[in-house]
């Protein structure tokens, strides 16, 4: 498996650390209900098909990347740096 890092170009999977679903981008507000935190931390769509998840180019540019890919075919559809935003 190879990811096309927007900064470094196509690199082998072993340069990257995988975290999990792109759900991790949507952190609830500090005072959100427990259910929101449960959804954020644990519950997943877990699709058999196109998904978006987070990869870290740990042995490259150290960018966190949002990867759109297919969990059935392993086709990589897009790779982009995570969007920045206020906490």
């Amino acid at each position: 498996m190879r990811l096309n890092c927007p900064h470094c170009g196509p690199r082998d999977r072993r340069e990257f650390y995988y975290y999990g679903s792109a759900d991790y981008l949507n952190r609830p507000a500090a005072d959100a209900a427990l259910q929101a935190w449960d959804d954020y931390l644990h519950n997943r769509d877990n699709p058999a098909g196109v998904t978006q998840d987070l990869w870290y180019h740990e042995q490259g540019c150290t960018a966190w990347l949002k990867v759109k890919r297919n969990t059935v075919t392993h086709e990589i559809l897009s790779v982009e740096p995570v969007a920045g935003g206020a906490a």
Partner: protein
Amino acid sequence: MRYSGLKVITEGLFGNKGWRPAWRDPAPKAEYDAIIIGGGGHGLSTAYYLAKNHGMTNIAVLEKGYLGSGNIGRNTTIVRANYFLPGNSEFYSHSLKLWEGLEGELNYNVMHSQRGLINLFHSDGQRDAFVRRGNSMINQGDDAILLDREGVREHLPYLDFDNTRFPIYGGLLHPRGGTARHDAVAWGYARGADKRGVDLIQNCEVTGIDVENGRVIGVQTTRGAIRAKKVGIVVAGRSSQVAAMAGMRLPIESHILQAFVTEGLKPVINHVVSFGMGHFYISQSDKGGLVFGGDLDFYASYAARGNLPMVEHVMEAGMTLMPMIGRAKVLRSWGGIMDMSPDGSPIIDKTHIDGLFIDCGWNYGGFKAVPASGWCMAHLMATGESHAVARRFKLNRFATGHILDEEGTGSQHNLH
């Protein structure tokens, strides 16, 4: 038809003409008392114990492919009860006890082989963690023996004691740990369930779960609608898809775990051996192949196949630990779809829908759990109450913070 050595001989002498099908091939009925979605190890054992322990025989197992087509037929066959957290300890202990009588129970030789499992440790810190684990096992009534380096050498003289990157300090021996013939477990439970009247329906994919006023009333399948007041979802890596049919979003991520087998070899590894500093565990099948595995490929996937990075890592771990296996050749590699939970422990629980139950989150511990999972899921489906040894396997424990994290790696599905 009862299987025995005598029966094998008499059938053999008469051309093996008398063997009858191990199970029927029934058409689905319009209604059952209970339906189990998923004809893998856990689904089949659930059906078996529903019939055997609870007298529920008007039930069906719906399998979209062939019986035992999931992880039951693609694992590294290890059976152990060496968990240390209360909640897991009693469950796996119960499972091991069921394993110990399984051939007699099922009249099927699942080749459960208690050849001993050795978890190696490579630092003082790891040793302390394994001592804690070993004591938990004994507290639970199971067995564990602490081996020092020389003790390990007596059992596993072929390890590289001199040059390996992470020296071997010792090991925790679990004498009752071992292996079993994976397919046979599925077939044994299937045959046992069928014999008790359970309809095992293959090539029958569930396409919808029917709910009315908060109660489950049946399922839609590729072979038509089937009614039932109780439905159990027991589909491992496909849990998210099936649960979604009932509007549920599970704390599950599906991941690939690869496993490997070599060409047949004369006996050379007589235990199950697990490396403590890399992802590598190995045993030798009765047929002679070295069966071994490592960690997940780490990215969410339903592909049931892996990639080279983990393949190579596993081989490298094997080479640093036991370089005598270097000339064994890998014959086949494959991948299973693991239903990874956020704390590495399973879920056997009711859902927010009356009559709908779920059994999932087996991470990569599913095979050894097959008997107890079925036992406890059957108990839950029949009585509506969690079985005593599975009472901590709640679906809402992540929301409440009652975490069962043996690895201590936190709420990241792929780290367990």
